[in-house]
């Protein structure tokens, strides 16, 4: 039997390294102790039979592209089909997250999607985002350098940041700028950290001082030249390199000179001292607590990460860091809408379907539709009156569909504690306890209210 403290640690780990879990699964994992639980979760090479059993969507991108040449009726029908493919793909991913036996693999894929944020609003073809997600899934646990090299030639990214339009004769800077600012080095200058204010976190960034921006406007313009030449030919699912459109001339990027191409820019950026702290800051801020590139824990983790950019090793480093288990870390993150939905689905055994996309859209977080290239916001941004109402409606929907057999079997006096255990909450605060005690005889209302408590929404 695991101690209460170990169970609490493992429940925290399962929330952050995954999406939360059913109480029985927490017990099972906690029985072996915390370190063993980290090893189980971080075993990212193991297959995930449950997630893979969700039937993958099928696509008919060719007929969508063909219809663009047809009449208005054909185009309308094609748009409708493309829209359906987008919704099906987003639902499919949610379902994978909800049933995954290897939740960290899905969580990591979602975090990389947030980091290399690309949206179907512009990409349109679900098949291309499905392929990008697969790239993030396949390469995500390995080397960040290899992942970044896949992203610079990713078809959806070439559409999203206009890389396919960028040629030697006329490079455009969209991808190059976000590659430095968001994907690798961070903005740096002006005391700004890596989690943008408008996205809700990041007071620690101030300590970064006036270190200055790690790259210059010249670097952006020169990198834009280096990234030219990647095309996405009509109907293709893989980018091709067109030498005639590539600028093979001499360039000066991040202090080095050469006739650099796309992969060279990835190497130059990942060899820059700002890269590891920036990337670690993104993951630490999403998995543990908000922390900019100058946060001492981030610096410490980045020192190891910079040597080889092994993402799996970084994840182990995060989950075994003493600060990961610190009391303030446990209440430092508001569940994002996807985490909230998927976590509740797992805890209450509620199967997910396409009807859950609507509340997610109302909350502002649908998979494959980040608001912009900086990804989703964090924390306070999710705590609006509008979001409170949508969450309440979502909580009612989930509570109505929940498997509450174990709660109903108990006398009302023991139900409030049982719901805490079910939802992975260590303890209710006094005010919450009072509110929940009052409704213990109505199990659906009890669970609805429990799902909108501060105790559940944090962590």
């Amino acid at each position, binding site marked *: 039997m695991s101690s209460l403290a170990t169970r609490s640690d493992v429940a925290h780990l399962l929330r952050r390294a995954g999406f939360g879990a059913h109480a029985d699964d927490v017990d099972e994992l906690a029985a072996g102790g915390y370190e063993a639980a980290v090893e189980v979760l971080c075993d990212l090479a193991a297959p995930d039979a449950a997630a893979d059993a969700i039937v993958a969507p099928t696509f008919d991108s060719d007929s969508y592209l063909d219809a663009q040449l047809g009449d208005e009726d054909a185009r309308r029908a094609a748009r409708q089909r493309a829209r359906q493919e987008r919704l099906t793909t987003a639902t499919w991913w949610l379902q994978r997250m909800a049933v995954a036996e290897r939740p960290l693999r899905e969580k990591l894929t979602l975090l990389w999607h947030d980091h290399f944020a690309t949206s179907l609003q512009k990409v349109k073809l679900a098949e291309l985002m499905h392929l990008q997600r697969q790239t993030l899934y396949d390469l995500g646990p390995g080397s960040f350098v290899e992942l970044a090299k896949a992203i610079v030639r990713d078809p959806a990214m070439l559409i999203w*940041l206009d890389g396919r339009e960028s040629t030697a004769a006329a490079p455009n800077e969209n991808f190059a700028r976000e590659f430095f600012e968001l994907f690798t080095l961070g903005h740096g200058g*002006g*005391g700004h950290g890596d989690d943008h204010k408008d996205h809700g976190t990041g007071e620690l960034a101030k300590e970064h001082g006036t270190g200055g921006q790690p790259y210059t406007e010249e670097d952006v313009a020169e990198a834009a030249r280096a990234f030219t030449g990647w095309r996405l030919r009509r109907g293709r699912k893989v980018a091709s390199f067109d030498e005639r459109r590539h600028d093979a001339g001499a360039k000066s990027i991040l202090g080095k000179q050469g006739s650099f191409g796309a992969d060279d820019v990835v190497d130059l950026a990942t060899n820059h001292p700002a890269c590891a702290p920036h990337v670690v800051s993104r993951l630490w801020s999403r998995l543990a607590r908000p922390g900019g590139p100058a946060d001492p824990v981030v610096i410490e983790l980045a020192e190891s990460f910079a040597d080889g950019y092994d993402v799996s090793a970084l994840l182990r480093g995060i989950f075994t860091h003493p600060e990961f288990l610190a009391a303030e870390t446990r209440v430092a993150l508001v569940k994002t809408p996807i985490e909230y939905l998927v976590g509740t689905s797992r805890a209450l055994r509620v199967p997910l379907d396409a009807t859950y996309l609507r509340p997610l859209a109302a909350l502002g977080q649908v998979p494959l539709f980040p608001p912009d290239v900086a990804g989703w916001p964090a924390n306070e941004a999710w705590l609006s009156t509008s979001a409170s109402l949508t969450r309440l409606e979502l909580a009612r929907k989930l509570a109505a569909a929940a498997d509450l057999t174990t709660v109903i079997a108990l006398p009302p006096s023991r139900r409030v504690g049982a719901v805490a255990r079910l939802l992975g909450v260590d303890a209710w605060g*006094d005010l919450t306890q009072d509110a929940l005690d009052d409704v213990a005889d109505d199990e659906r*209302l009890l669970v609805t*209210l429990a799902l909108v408590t501060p105790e559940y929404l944090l962590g």
Partner: protein
Amino acid sequence: MATDRRTFLLSGLAGLGATALLGSSTTGVAAASAPAPWASLRPARAPSSGPGTLVLITLRGGNDALNTVVPVDDAIYREARGALAVDPDAALALGDGFALHPALRGCKALWDDERLAVVHGVGFASLDRSHFHCMDVWQSGDENDLDTGWLGRWLDREGTDVLDAIAIGQRLPLAFRGAERSAAVVPVGPFELPGDATLRRHLTTLGRVDRGRAPLAAAVARSTADLLDVIDTVGPLASAGRSTAALDANNGGAAAAPEGEPQRGGYGLAGQLDTVARLINADLPTRAYGVELGGFDTHANQAAVHEALLTQLDGALSGFLEQVGERPVTVAVYSEFGRRVRANGSAGTDHGGGGTVLLAGAVRPGFHGEPPPLDDLADGDLRTTVDFRAVFGGLLEGVLDVDTADVLEDAPRPLSLV
């Protein structure tokens, strides 16, 4: 106390007269500060009469200011923009060598009616080409990485009621986030509490803020309490409107997504502004509203995209001002930055300087600020001639009737805009 206030609100809106809360009396004092030396000589239609209502429209992505208020006959502009240059015959002339983009017909009518102002060259010292840094600066009203917004600090200082400010949408924007108080966020479309009185009673308990709670836990509780405080007042008004889908379709914009697929730029601007108009017309005590339109990051194939966005902005803005009629409402439209003067090779424009703020409704009409010279660029960008804090200061003093220095650090003298 919250309960007193709620009782007050539940007692109905009849008691909340427009004159009492919006100060629409004609006996107010005219704006005291002298017009800036470069302000238009065109006289204001009527002097400002005390506090009004501010509606902030954020254009996300970096609106091409140069193709919004266009130096239409300028040879440097025409050469640098090439095929993207606005057709001078189609542009809507304002005078002084400037014309509005042809899509802005409603704005031209406002200009002719002396209800539109243009502030040239708005920016700040640290304006770079980062969406995220620049948007943070605009929203926080500060270049030093504050995690409160400029209107949030106004709420912290002057706020008495959760309805003081309302942002339309889903998430709470930084501009409206204070350390202690934040704006209510109201969605487009239905806004009604599900369940019965029992649910409400228990939510009231959950919304109480326990001193011992961690700051984020307190924020969760506060969002529940705020919801209960606003929903009875705002809910019936927000739900009673016309179909926002139809509104936005008419304006060339995207409608709210019924089946769960988010739309480009979020919800349509016309639907958002329709909600704002209905709240204003119901005489809520709200003094500041926020709405957003995204999609302005036009690196490629800009002409059609930009025209569609400006059409949407123009239709939504005109319809909104018609709805609120003679009420003292000031609309301010801004974006995080402008675009590079020279077009790129993808029939688009890359990030650049050159912010233009549009003001509509109760404003001192005409041009404000100095147009940045096209023959003296900074690394290919238009220079900043007006510090954005002078614009925000003008809105704080002219619309919200508070001292700029209470909210903005190191602000230059406010422009006289209202």
